[in-house]
């Protein structure tokens, strides 16, 4: 078997390093079993009030008011799909955004950065772990959603998964830039928390964006994620899309094409800035 030593970098050694980082993150995640379990259960605590809120508006013909906006009266499947996609946004903001900060707090960032691999690879490894853990959590959440709220989809799951790919690549590209910004700001909890909540809300994770007031609607429509949420719901639930699907897919591909290199560029600039200022270990 040819050597994949990190001292002689090759694509294989890079892949090995990324997988080792992903494995490390996965082990850390499952070392706190109660927290891991609550990552699946906690969203149900937020979704259950939505379910009963829907019940308090439902007449004998179901949620006709909701159907007038969306084309479906299955509001719980609409919200559950939004919650799954919002999980990935939260993973990028909290997981990726705090990836470097957590290492800084634990005092291992400097030693990790001495490793003979490109520094962006540290984030690639964390991205892989984050994607795997979030997918695992989301699957658990959908299973609970199916058991408790009758979650069901009827459309083309493969096409929806294909649409998810450019959206996730773009999101994690943004995560690179965001991780670097958090590294720069250090005390960024409120910024991360508020940004995560606002972006999920404006993208329509819980409701059709048509209900937003005039002041907020342009912000929502300016977010490429809004079209990702919309296209996936259109394919899986038969919801009336905001734009024709091919336009929404083009927006997502454009988002990916811009955000991925931009995220990498911002990360490199801030990394250099931190090195020059010598603030890597300060927190």
């Amino acid at each position: 078997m040819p050597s994949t030593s990190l001292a002689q970098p090759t694509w294989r050694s890079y892949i090995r390093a990324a997988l080792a980082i992903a494995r490390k993150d996965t082990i850390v995640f499952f070392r706190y079993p109660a927290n891991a379990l609550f990552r699946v259960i906690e969203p149900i605590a937020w979704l259950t009030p939505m379910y009963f809120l829907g019940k308090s508006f439902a007449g004998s013909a179901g949620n006709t008011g909701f159907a007038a906006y969306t084309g479906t009266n299955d509001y719980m499947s609409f919200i559950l799909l939004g919650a799954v996609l919002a999980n990935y946004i939260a993973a990028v903001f909290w997981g990726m955004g705090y990836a470097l900060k957590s290492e800084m707090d634990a005092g291992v960032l400097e030693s990790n950065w001495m490793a003979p691999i490109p520094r962006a690879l540290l984030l690639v490894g964390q991205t892989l772990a984050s994607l795997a853990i979030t997918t695992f959590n989301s699957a658990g959440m959908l299973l609970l959603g199916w058991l408790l709220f009758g979650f069901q989809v009827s459309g083309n799951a493969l096409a929806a998964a294909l649409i998810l790919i450019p959206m996730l690549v773009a999101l994690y590209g943004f995560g690179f830039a965001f991780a670097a910004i958090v590294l720069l700001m250090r005390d960024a909890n409120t910024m991360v928390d508020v940004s995560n909540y606002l972006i999920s809300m404006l993208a329509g994770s819980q409701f059709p964006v048509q209900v937003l007031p005039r002041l907020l609607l342009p912000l929502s429509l300016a977010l490429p994620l809004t079209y990702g949420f919309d296209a996936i719901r259109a394919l899986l639930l038969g919801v009336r899309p905001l734009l024709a699907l091919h336009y929404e897919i083009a927006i997502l591909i454009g988002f990916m094409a811009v955000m991925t290199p931009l995220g990498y560029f911002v990360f490199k600039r801030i990394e250099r800035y931190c090195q020059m200022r010598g603030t890597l270990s300060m927190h």
Partner: protein
Amino acid sequence: MDTHIAEPWRAGRSLATELRAVLMIARKEWMIFRRYPSWVIALFIWPVLMPLAYIFTAQALGGPGGESLTRFQQLTGTRDYAAFIVLGSILWMWLNMTLWDVGMYLRNEQMHGTLESNWLCPTWRVSLILGGALTKLLVSVAFILISLLEFRVLLGVHLLAGNVGLALLALLLTIPIVHGIGIAFASLVLRFKEANAMVFLVRGIFMIFCGITFPVAVLPGWMQVIAAVLPLTYAIHAVRAALLANAGWAELSADLLVLGAYAIAAPLLGYILFGIVERGARRRGDLGQY
């Protein structure tokens, strides 16, 4: 030795001395709060942000012309779903803040390595918690006032139109309940350590059963039984009825009596639980472990 740090009436310390200790701890906590501007900023942002998602969802469920609002009105007595949700959310956020702040107070001291040294002070240990709780209470009052103001200005939701006096009475009775729950929670966190998971569990139970964003009447029977045991259900119902339906004493007396009973029971329960956990931690010698 134990008598020096026992209850003030047994240890021969005056209540004025104990009060001074409480105020000193409150001052220390206030200084820490002010040192983190992002905490102050959060106080202005979350009151509006958290209920917004539920309000927009309710708007979507109501339909473009509000055609589904009739059913909501039959269940709640009001078409003003925004005010209905805002009132429930404010009370829930208050409990959530108390769980995080009072509940995590001892845990944070434990994590910082200062709990054991604080425990050695010749002060009643309950004063240590009361001092922390006093600052959080001030922050909570600020939070509620900011919420009322922001909803009035930003969303035009006017919450002070009904029977403000009885709503205020319900809120006053809720203060010892929320802090009693907070102290009981702090004791459990001290014992079981996994604080985040416990906050998620406790606040989740209140979120699901107390009718924060929906009328309790839509819950299935077994869930309504659980809702009837939780004090926040009565607080939310009383405040909503007073402010949105201008309910008087005759309609609210039952809720207020239950709240009064909980206002005595919850701090007592917190105190007893704290005593048990504290004694257990000293016996096992794991007070400083986390």
